[in-house]
């Protein structure tokens, strides 16, 4: 009896002992594995567009436009995403996601969400962003919105997705300013970065040119000919109030904001010839920056505020120069070709976009300021007014299609080009606004 009782006990002991032996072997293997590991170096990338699936939001038919459509269009337009066809899915922010089919579609990221009425004509839009290969949530947000805010909400979601996946801020919620000529009427318009949702800030029967965003996005400086001569105005967008800040004898043109928003660089001819001046943003304290017998124009501050880029014909042809904001010696930057104008430094200060005439074509080009290498970005022929997106990824510019002005955008590496869908009219003088916090 005792023997039969003991047998399983002994066998249990043996089993435990065996387990320990196996454990010991495993540990030994791990120890050796820790020494031996294969190192593989991987350089470069197989692609540069992140495959992302944006599933139609549950209940989004209550809003126009559909939020997922706007997100998808934003991401695709950036050139940094490849949007995947999802088809109808029974998926929302409250669903448990089965990642297998999305992995099958080779999606890197998945956006799901829903729109829920919360009463009083208001809605809540909620979404989740998933990393598909990792099968993990990258983030989630909720917004309360009115019917009118559907597009703005979608842009904010697209910004979130963009930033999570690229590490850089998205610009889908930023705004652009441009001038539309319709018949005899000029309109300064402000629209979403995709050209949608346009609103007029100013209408005039005389030309409006050179809009420039204040660094905080609350004001626009521009030149209006409404008094039969060019005068620089600063226009507050929230109140619609505006003030003539440069209305001197002769022409007043080409305003540019200092990065701190306290100063404006302008071009005045009050002392004969177009010359660069700096003044306070309220128009006081105008002082001449440079003295030359040539035409100096199109000033633009470097993002650090330390220097000012400008166009001058002092060398016999229009070329781009740079001078310290405190004044001093002038440095010529462009030498290639007989016409290089409209300098616009990138937000990181490393590149300079400008318009270059090559043969009979005017093209947006970019100079790497470190190496001074120049590259044409566009293949259109009548480009003007390049303007960097605040994240430096895209350049907005005006060009002409069948002698009508249209807006176009090109990625800063020239890889992605697109036309902005601004409604009919002759569109010119675009300026991309800053990030809004």
């Amino acid at each position, binding site marked *: 009896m005792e023997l039969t009782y003991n047998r399983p006990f002994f066998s249990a002991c043996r089993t435990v002992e065996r387990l320990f032996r196996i454990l010991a072997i495993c540990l030994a293997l791990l120890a050796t594995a820790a020494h031996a590991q*294969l190192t593989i170096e991987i350089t*470069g990338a*197989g692609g*540069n567009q992140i495959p992302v699936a944006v599933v139609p939001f549950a209940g989004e038919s209550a809003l126009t436009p559909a939020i997922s459509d706007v997100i998808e269009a934003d991401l695709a337009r950036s050139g940094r995403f490849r949007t995947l066809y999802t088809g109808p899915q029974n998926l929302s922010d409250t669903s448990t996601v089965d990642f297998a089919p999305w992995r099958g579609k080779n999606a890197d990221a998945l956006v799901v969400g829903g729109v829920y009425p919360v009463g009083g004509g208001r809605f809540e839009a909620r979404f989740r962003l998933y*990393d598909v290969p*990792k099968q993990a949530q*990258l983030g989630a947000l909720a917004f309360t919105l009115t019917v009118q805010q559907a597009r703005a909400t979608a842009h904010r979601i697209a910004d979130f997705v963009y930033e999570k996946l*690229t590490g850089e801020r998205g610009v889908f919620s930023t705004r652009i300013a441009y001038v539309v000529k319709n018949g005899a009427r000029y309109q300064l318009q402000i629209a979403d970065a995709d050209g949608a949702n346009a609103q007029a800030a100013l209408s005039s029967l005389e030309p409006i040119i050179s809009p420039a965003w204040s660094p905080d996005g609350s004001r626009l400086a521009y030149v209006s000919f409404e008094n039969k001569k060019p005068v620089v105005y600063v226009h507050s967008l929230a109140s619609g109030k505006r003030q003539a800040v440069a209305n001197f004898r002769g022409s007043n043109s080409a305003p540019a904001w200092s990065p701190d928003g306290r100063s404006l660089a302008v071009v005045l001819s009050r002392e004969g010839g177009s010359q660069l001046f700096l003044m306070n943003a309220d128009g006081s304290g105008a002082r001449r920056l440079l003295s030359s017998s040539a035409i100096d124009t199109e000033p633009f501050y470097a993002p650090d505020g330390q220097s000012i880029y400008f166009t001058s014909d002092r060398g016999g042809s229009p070329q781009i120069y740079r001078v310290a904001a405190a004044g001093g010696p002038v440095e010529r930057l462009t030498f290639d070709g007989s016409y290089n104008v409209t300098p616009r430094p990138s937000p990181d200060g490393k590149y300079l976009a400008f318009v270059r005439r090559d043969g009979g074509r005017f093209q947006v080009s970019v100079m790497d300021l470190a190496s001074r290498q120049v590259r044409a970005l566009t293949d259109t022929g009548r480009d003007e007014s390049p303007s960097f997106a605040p994240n430096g990824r895209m350049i907005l510019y005006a060009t002409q299609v069948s002698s009508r002005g249209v807006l176009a955008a090109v990625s800063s590496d020239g890889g992605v080009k697109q036309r902005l869908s601004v409604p009919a009219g002759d569109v010119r003088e675009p300026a991309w606004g800053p990030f809004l916090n």
Partner: protein
Amino acid sequence: MDIALEREKEIRRLEEVERKRREDEHRRKELEEKQRKEEDARRLEAEKKRKEEAQRQEAEKKRREDEARAKAARDKQRVAEERRLKEDLERARDQRLKDQLARELGSTTSAARTGTPVAGDAGATAGWVDKIRAKIRGNVVLPPDLPGNPQAVFLVQLLPSGDIVSVRLARSSGNKAVDEAWERAILKSSPLPQPDKREVFQARLELRFSLRDEP
């Protein structure tokens, strides 16, 4: 004296004796018969018992023999199983030792660059590395115009099937989105290609990513 009477008496006495003798004889025979019968019955009974005992013993013997046979069979099987298990373990250990040896030889030669290839394993390792690099690189999605040259190191644990068990970021590029893009590329590449030669397989990989070649 009456002789006749005496004689008559004597005859009757003799007859009585004879009768008594016969009675005794009869009784004795009866007793003997009874005893014989009893003896027979006892013998029968004993015989029967003996037979039964024999049968029982026979059955018991058979049962024991059966049991013994079954136990022998079981024992044999267990011994065989144990031997097989032991052989498996030993085989695995031998293989691991061989693998480790191959690895150590491979790494020494590649590190020392002695130029003496070890039985083609260095070539097999290089081929495997190329296959892994190609698959993962094909799944890396990064914008071409990222500033600088971000670099990161990941440690990856593999099963012999090539399936990725774990991915650990050992050194970040400093850009979370770029790190995650590389991690996605690794995970999307599971299962990784297997080496042409099983011996060169290694369960731990160190993946060193960089956006572009150093100038």
